[in-house]
């Protein structure tokens, strides 16, 4: 039901863009106004979300320790999984961001006869995520050829590498296959794995379906529905967008407007959804803090300077009489009363 809703929502978006762009004069709404609005919402929302996170204090050092911390010299320690210095934290973050290391150690609990529970490493999520994210990255980078004039050499190089199989015309991109494969595998994982399916919500399915829609409309535009898809006209519009002087001088096929509308929706939806893990991965205190609590005291930024530390000795001083009355042992006895002497 939840995934069916996601499909319906994306189909509705496609229909809006398809029918809307056919109305004369509406090309500027779908080709210029909505993309501009979307990129502003994306940038503004992204910065806003990161600032909100940056304003939240971290009261405790809450790194996930996955190995032996720094201790006595003869105890072998795990530098990556229990980082103690800044450079070790950077190394850990680097591997997290570029190799998805925490997904690599994803474990799956299974109940066998006995009853016996096992925790096996399940690498599928890691593999699917790698295929998906790297394909997406290359796709975003090579789309820059449509926004830059002249096209810088490194973008041309990425594109040439992506099309290296030289299949068909226009040449097939490897990342087209990678992105669709990655989305379908991640989506399939949510459907087939009962644990993951149970915790999946509409806002887990919707981005996947939306990205699948973007990929499919892009592929259709490049290889199949080529009526009125002249790359020079499209690039003239997109470079116009990037140089703040957009003009639509020729008719462009509806599939282009559908594609750019879905991308606009993704951009506008991005800062307010789980997709913010793009920024969040850098902001995660469980990964970006040093595990040096034995050496350095973590000061809670919430601490009220008016609340002084209260030692046990001070506590006993305050309550000694009542403690003695109640028969609680005290370290320092009450001073002898003068009357008795």
């Amino acid at each position, binding site marked *: 039901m939840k995934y069916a809703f996601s499909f319906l929502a994306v189909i509705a978006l496609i229909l809006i863009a398809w029918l809307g762009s056919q109305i004369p004069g509406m090309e500027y709404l779908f080709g210029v106004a909505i993309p501009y609005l979307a*990129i502003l919402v*994306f*940038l503004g929302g*992204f*910065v806003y979300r*990161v*600032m909100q996170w*940056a*304003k*939240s*204090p*971290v009261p405790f050092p809450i790194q996930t320790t996955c190995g032996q911390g720094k201790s006595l010299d003869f105890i072998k320690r795990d530098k990556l999984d229990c980082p103690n210095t800044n450079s070790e934290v950077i190394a850990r973050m680097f591997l997290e961001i570029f190799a998805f290391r925490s997904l690599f150690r994803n474990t799956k609990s299974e109940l066998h006869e006995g009853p016996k529970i096992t925790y096996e490493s399940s690498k599928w999520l890691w593999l699917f995520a790698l295929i998906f994210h790297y394909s997406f990255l290359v796709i975003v980078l090579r789309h*820059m*050829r*449509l*926004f*830059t*004039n*002249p*096209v*810088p050499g490194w*973008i*041309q190089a990425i*594109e*040439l590498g992506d099309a290296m199989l*030289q299949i*068909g*015309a*226009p040449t097939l991109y490897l990342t087209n296959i990678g992105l669709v494969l990655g989305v379908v595998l991640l989506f399939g994982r949510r459907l087939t794995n009962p644990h993951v399916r149970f915790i999946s919500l509409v806002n887990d399915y919707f981005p996947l379906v939306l990205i699948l829609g973007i990929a499919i409309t892009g592929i259709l535009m490049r290889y199949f529905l*080529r*009526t*009125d*898809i*002249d*790359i*020079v006209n499209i*690039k*003239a519009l997109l*470079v*116009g967008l*990037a*140089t*703040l*002087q957009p003009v639509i001088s020729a008719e462009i096929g509806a599939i282009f407007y559908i594609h750019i509308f879905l991308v606009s929706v993704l951009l506008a939806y991005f800062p307010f959804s789980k997709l913010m893990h793009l*920024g969040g991965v*850098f*902001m995660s205190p469980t990964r970006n803090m040093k595990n040096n609590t034995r050496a350095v005291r973590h000061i809670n*930024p919430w601490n009220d300077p008016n609340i002084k530390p209260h030692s046990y000795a001070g506590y006993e001083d305050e309550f000694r009489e009542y403690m003695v009355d109640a028969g609680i042992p005290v370290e320092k006895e009450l001073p002898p009363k003068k009357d008795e002497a």
Partner: protein
Amino acid sequence: MYNKKTIIPGLIIFVLFVTFPVWFNGLDAGPVPKPEMPQGGQKECVLPADEMRASHMQLLNEWRDDVLRDGGRDVVTVAGKEYRKGLQMACMECHTSQEKFCDTCHIYASVKPYCWDCHITPEAATKKKETR
């Protein structure tokens, strides 16, 4: 706000990364390519101009497969005019210059067709004959 020293530079890098095309182009869209029209004044091609613009690469690929893989060298007849299947034999009869016709759009859109791995332009062909 906490950790200003890392978060603010990080956000600046992110915004610069996203707005890359804006500052890279420097608000200058540059010229839109104008491919040279045939010198002989020919107006007709195998397909209407907008269809050629959108899908000439698919047509050329089909021709290549027909000729080189299936040996189908039959002539294409459009509006009473006969065209031989081939880049040098048909297209470049009218659109003689690679630089002034093909490359104008291909460079603009950063498309690198591998036609020229095997083909040479008529200009290059005549040059080669002269040097022999």
